[in-house]
């Protein structure tokens, strides 16, 4: 079939190009599921403890909203599916979207598809090759998840159903992305609209799950959960995702025939003919370039903060009945368990939010790599002003991100307990980690200015701080290693007392790192 000529070559080419990316996604999701399964098993070692947590979660609206439908929660399989299922499904959806986009729209936007289609290659070959590659990822992931869960002594049929529920969702979003990629020529719009559909699926099934489950039928995530892994599998429900995949893929196939290479079905909206007042300074440009990312991080962290806030009032009750959790939180000694919970929450949110600061500063790397920085640095803009503009976004943006996530926690908690008096304390607990986050920003700028080729190592430092923060105790890391992280020196509020000195010192370190970075950048060649 001539429309498919060269598909096999493209598949091999894609494997060669994206093998690391593919591996990271698949193994990342696999490890998340297995680690969660292991920790659930350790947390609830007896049937009695399972019964207790099931009773707690059964009618807990907050837990159901974020975890999924309460299906057979008093079994180990049901509990694991509840704890990891929805997160896993969201990640599978994102993996399918980003990988399909990577293989199709990104290539087309860069003009590489044109290069390939000019050779002996069928019109549909790129679409089909991408579909084969992403489907293969989903199949491998489903297989690994199934085997991993069977390895944890879970029922075989339920484990297969759980793996298949991932595969079903992956296929649906592969089809949806295939269709979206034909409609618009803008990769970011493809990613954004498809990711928003994942979000909508999440919300629709949440609405359904806290009701009678009908609304969940509107959601691809709901379809996968209707399969009921470990809870009396209903295999016939797979008809819905299979049909949805076939329909969307067929639509993508037809749309490919109706549009030009490089274009979409929808013509792009024109922009402004003249610039607004914002675009008058390097900072204005940095705001314009980074505001989308700032909004994205803020929304994500507000939702996460809200999630924590929604479960906080049940913590005391929850933990009383669970010795391991009680041990975990009592490490903070003296404070109430709810405060201890909020302390962990603030650290968690701050560690995640630190990613925004790193990303914002490292924008300089891509601006320089694409030579766009050259256009600006040839105007009377000093190097410090240009690099500093992205640092300002990181510093001010992290105030917004951490402030909002603390506010999200506090407001949702306040609504549930009907009392907003903890609001300043909770927002303050988040903001107390600002200097630590600024150290990350300063470190990224230092690397960029002094050793630009190694600037991306800032992400490694970020990952190391996350590991130290989340798993430091579990991994038994020595104190001096933990002490390398600025998060370790920040006052852990609200469970502990506020101390100003560490914050001053950490801020000074951040300033010093940033200053060295700016001086280094002033003294080096650009582009490197």
């Amino acid at each position, binding site marked *: 079939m001539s429309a498919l000529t060269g598909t096999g070559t493209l598949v091999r080419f894609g494997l060669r190009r994206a093998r690391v990316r593919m591996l990271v996604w698949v193994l990342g999701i696999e490890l998340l599921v297995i680690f969660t399964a292991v920790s659930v098993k350790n947390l609830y070692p007896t049937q009695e403890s399972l019964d207790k947590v099931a009773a707690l979660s059964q009618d807990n609206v907050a837990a159901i909203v974020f975890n999924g439908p309460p299906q057979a929660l008093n079994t180990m399989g049901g509990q694991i599916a509840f704890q990891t299922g929805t997160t896993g499904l969201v990640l599978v959806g994102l993996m399918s979207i980003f990988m399909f986009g990577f293989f199709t729209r990104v290539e087309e936007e860069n003009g590489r598809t044109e290069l390939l289609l000019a050779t002996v290659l069928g019109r549909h070959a790129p679409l089909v090759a991408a579909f084969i590659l992403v489907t293969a990822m989903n199949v491998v992931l489903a297989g690994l998840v199934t085997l991993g869960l069977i390895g944890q002594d879970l029922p075989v049929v339920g484990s297969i159903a759980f793996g298949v529920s991932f595969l079903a969702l992956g296929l649906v979003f592969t089809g949806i992305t295939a269709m979206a990629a034909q409609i618009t020529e803008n990769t970011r719009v493809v990613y954004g609209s498809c990711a928003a559909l994942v979000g909508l699926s999440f919300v629709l099934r949440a609405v359904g799950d806290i009701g009678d489950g009908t609304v969940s039928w509107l959601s691809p995530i709901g379809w996968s959960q209707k399969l009921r892994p470990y809870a009396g599998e209903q295999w016939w429900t797979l008809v819905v995702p299979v049909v949805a995949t076939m329909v969307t893929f067929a639509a993508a196939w037809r749309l490919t025939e109706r549009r030009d290479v490089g274009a979409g079905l929808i013509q*792009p909206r024109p922009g*402004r003919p*003249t*610039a607004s007042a914002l675009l*008058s300074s390097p900072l204005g440009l940095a705001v314009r370039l980074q505001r989308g990312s700032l909004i994205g991080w803020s929304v994500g962290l507000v939702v996460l903060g809200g999630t924590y806030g929604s479960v906080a009032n049940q913590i005391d009750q929850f933990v009383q009945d669970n010795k391991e959790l009680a041990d975990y939180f009592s490490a903070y000694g003296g404070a109430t368990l709810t405060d201890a919970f909020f302390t962990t929450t603030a650290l968690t949110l701050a560690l995640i939010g630190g990613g925004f600061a790193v990303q914002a500063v490292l924008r300089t790397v891509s601006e320089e790599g694409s030579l766009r920085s*050259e256009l600006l640095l*040839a105007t009377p803009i000093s*190097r410090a002003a240009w690099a500093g503009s992205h640092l300002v976004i990181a510093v001010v943006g992290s105030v917004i991100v951490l402030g909002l996530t603390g506010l999200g926690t506090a407001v949702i908690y306040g609504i549930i307990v009907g009392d907003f008096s903890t609001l300043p304390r909770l927002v303050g607990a988040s903001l107390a980690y600002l200097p630590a986050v600024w150290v990350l920003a300063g470190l990224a700028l230092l690397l960029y200015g002094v050793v630009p080729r190694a600037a991306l190592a800032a992400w490694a430092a970020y990952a190391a701080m996350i590991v130290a923060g989340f798993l430091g105790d579990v991994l038994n890391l020595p104190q001096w290693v933990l002490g390398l992280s600025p998060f370790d020196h920040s006052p852990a509020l609200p469970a502990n007392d506020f101390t100003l000195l560490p914050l001053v010192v950490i801020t000074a370190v951040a300033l010093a790192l940033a200053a060295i970075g700016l001086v280094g950048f002033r003294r080096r*060649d650009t582009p490197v």
Partner: protein
Amino acid sequence: MTAIIELEGLVKTFGSTRALDGLDLLVEEGTVHGFLGPNGSGKTTTIRVLLGLLRADTGRARLFGGDPWRDAVNLHRRLAYVPGDVNLWPKLSGGEVIDLLGRLRGDLDARRRAELLERFELDPRKKARTYSKGNRQKVALVAALSSSAELLILDEPTSGLDPIMEAVFQECIREIKTEGRTVLLSSHILAEVEALCDGVSIIRAGRTVQSGTLTDLRHLTRTAITADTVRPPTGLDRLPGVHGLKVENHRARFDVDTDHLDEAVRALTELGLRSLTSQPPTLEELFLRQYGDVLAHDGVAVKGAEEVKSAEEVAR
């Protein structure tokens, strides 16, 4: 005349690569100066040194009499730059980029901007991601040309433009020249350089190999002669500066070094001239002569202007 750009013995190395190897460049106020050289010869590196983006290892660099590295910010108030590789922010429209760059430079002229948009037939509302290479180049050109900067540094600014836009570009540069402003024009398009430039510097492997006005340079090169004579043209091969002599009956074709043109023509007159055509060397020949040995080294059978001539003969 004041020198706007003065580079002397500039050396810049990247690791073991010697990108600039003693480069000289002099550009005087109010002139359009062509900056020629094959790919990878160091043109862009030179421009980046001038912009204070790269720091030269040794040598002297002066821009408006100042140090391009130390005084970068102040010097940039007086210049506008169009890079060879124009990359824009995909989300911004062309109009937004033009305004941004103009405001950063501080000399955005709205009337001129509108006029240039029209002349270059550029739609300022399109997002940069949807522009072709030529259109991205037009955005950078409109941004630079709508400024009142004293110096324009243009790095192969027309490589993506069609012939009509090329003509518009040449027109704009002539206007800038009449206003007494200075232009450094790096280019591959020799016809463009020939049409626009007062002076030319040809560089190779990071070193300036020829520099001067176009007239000066022509003196260094050969004129192509075709002559029909009454007596068979013998003895021409003994004349100094004659190259590639070809004699067919009463017709002689050869190239002669411009310095020896007089003697050659006198010799032809003695043979009894029936007809004579002479062709001054084009920049293209000049350029190819400078790189003749490079081409020969690469296995291309070109050795200076003679071979170019004979190729033209074949074409005729």
